[in-house]
């Protein structure tokens, strides 16, 4: 299959800012895209943020508290230091009185800002933190394998480690409730599959490992996720809960609350708590593939009334990376991965590949999409 959408004329949604860089996008007669239609028709009407939503939240919290009686923790939450997971932690502890096992996955790319934010939050809330430090030699080799494969979804090594760690801790401590910071307010529009493919498709992962890894990745926390998902979801009854959907959650609210109460400091953009993700989403994806994840984020904000289309367009007109510092960033990434700048550039210039160019279980994942979405297999789970 050739570059997706290469034969289409450029078109951008009349309502949000998704465009034909999403090769599967469909437009109606008004020029409105299928993301907008789907969300307006199926998602927004079900979205309860008023008293009804609050009531749902309270009921959920009750169930969680009950299930955790006599145990060390009643739920589990992954903390990246990012906005959504930080606010969510604040919410469930201070307003719902939950007792989460809070964990953080260190993939070697933490920014100092993220580390500070996690510390302040955890300290102020009087919580204890678990961390999983991924063996750097393995992580590095795994990340390089993805670079060498030429596909867009380079962040799978970080994503997969997060999901595997989540399941490991939940299983170990018998925790039935996974608190997920995914939310409609800022994420109703999903990243196209071509851009950010499933982080748990082991057929794809194993093939890329087989072809491009130089190490056995003996210390990397692989999860036979499908097994765990089915096992935990249906047999052990683990539920995924998204509290941020039951209240009027906005970025403003989150940033204000956190800054005021914890001295939390905001990131310049979503995902910038990881230096790799910052580089990957801010520079690599847009310049190599033309995929600008800001389009997806801003479109969500447009649909939920937090940003105007004009504002989004004006922001998108500027690059997502800082042209003044990008050379330094490029060098930093290359140095950290212990490759030359030339080698990194060669990966940037190599012929493009997509998930379908390697063995994959797409069909199975699409079929199980509802289950997977609920458990949050997409990137949102780590917020």
């Amino acid at each position: 299959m050739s570059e997706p959408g290469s034969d289409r004329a450029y078109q951008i949604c009349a309502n949000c800012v998704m465009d034909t860089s999403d090769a599967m996008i469909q437009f109606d007669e008004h020029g409105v895209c299928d993301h907008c239609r789907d969300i307006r028709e199926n998602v927004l009407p079900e979205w309860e943020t008023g008293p009804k939503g609050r009531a749902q939240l309270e009921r959920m919290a009750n169930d969680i508290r009950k299930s955790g009686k006599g145990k060390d923790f009643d739920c589990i939450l992954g903390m990246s230091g990012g906005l959504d997971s930080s606010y969510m932690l604040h919410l469930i502890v201070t307003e719902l009185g939950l007792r989460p096992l809070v964990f953080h996955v260190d993939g070697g790319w933490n920014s100092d800002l993220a580390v500070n934010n996690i510390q302040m939050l955890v300290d102020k809330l009087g919580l204890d933190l678990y961390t999983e430090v991924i063996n750097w030699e393995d992580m590095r080799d795994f990340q390089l394998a993805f670079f060498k494969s030429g596909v867009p979804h380079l962040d799978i090594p970080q994503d997969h480690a997060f999901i595997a760690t989540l399941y490991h801790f939940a299983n170990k401590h018998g925790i039935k409730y996974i608190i997920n910071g995914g939310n409609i307010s800022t994420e109703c529009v999903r990243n196209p599959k071509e851009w950010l493919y499933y982080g748990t498709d082991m057929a794809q992962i194993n093939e890329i490992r087989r072809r491009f890894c130089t190490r056995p990745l003996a210390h990397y926390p692989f999860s036979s996720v499908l097994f765990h998902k089915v096992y935990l979801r249906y047999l052990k009854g683990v539920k995924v809960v998204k509290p941020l959907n039951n209240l009027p959650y906005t970025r403003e609210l989150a940033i204000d609350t956190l800054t005021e109460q914890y001295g939390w400091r905001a990131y310049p953009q979503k995902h910038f708590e990881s230096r790799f993700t910052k580089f990957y989403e801010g520079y690599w994806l847009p310049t190599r593939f033309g995929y600008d994840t800001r389009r997806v984020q801003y479109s969500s904000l447009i649909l939920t009334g937090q940003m105007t289309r004009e504002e989004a367009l004006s922001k998108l007109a500027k690059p997502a990376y800082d042209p003044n510092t990008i050379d330094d960033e490029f060098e930093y990434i290359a140095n950290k991965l212990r490759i030359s700048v030339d080698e990194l550039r060669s990966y940037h210039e190599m012929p493009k590949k997509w998930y379908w160019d390697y063995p994959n279980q797409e069909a199975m994942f699409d079929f199980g999409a509802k289950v997977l979405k609920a458990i949050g297999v997409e990137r949102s789970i780590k917020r």
Partner: protein
Amino acid sequence: MTLHSRIFPVLLIRDQGLVKTRRFGEDRYVGDPMNAVKIFNEKQVDELAIFDIDATVQGREPDFAQLEKIAVESRMPLCYGGGVTTAEQAARLVSIGYEKVSISAAALDRPELIAEMAERIGRQSVVVTLDVRKEGLLGNHNLYTHNATKKQSAKAIDFAARAEELGAGEIVINSIDRDGMTDGYDLKFAKAVRDTVNVPLSFVGGAGSIADMAKLIDAVGTVGAGAGSMFVFKGPYRAVLISYDRPDNAREMT
């Protein structure tokens, strides 16, 4: 407001990765050294000490390539120890950006090395690190090398004095029994060492809190207070999260 006590993180490198030990034994993987160095850099720490804990045991010399990468990123003074046996190696380390070079087993093996290094790189850059274990009914402080496996006949305090005579610019006392225990420094021994030598001193092993460091400074005056676990672990589950802080009395009048 004048000379400050030096509050510094101690990084242990094994197999190119960072580890933290307990009593020089059980080790736990803590991450990529480069990332830790970056974060400590951003936190503007006073100094950083880096030890390759297997170099001597494996009879290896320092990994100059990795160390150079670390030095280039660092905006704070660095001390390195592990596998240094010649003044030549010390000079090379200085040239790639290490202000201080530490020897331990090599100094006990051949004390003249201290003088040779002082001659070559200057006394101010020569650090002698003594791994000390308090043991026995009498609570003697015995000297060990090779990751606490080889007991030395020399007594710690005596050798500290000798090292100073031979040209050491700094003595670091590394407590094996307190390593990773976060129970506080061995203050009594610290005072004994302070009373014996005049060169700058640093103590590593036992720091569990800023209060521990404050107590050390109260006990011996302006000093180097090193910490491994404290700046890398957080909470009862020993979550890996890098932090840095100084006690108020680090900025003292002398």
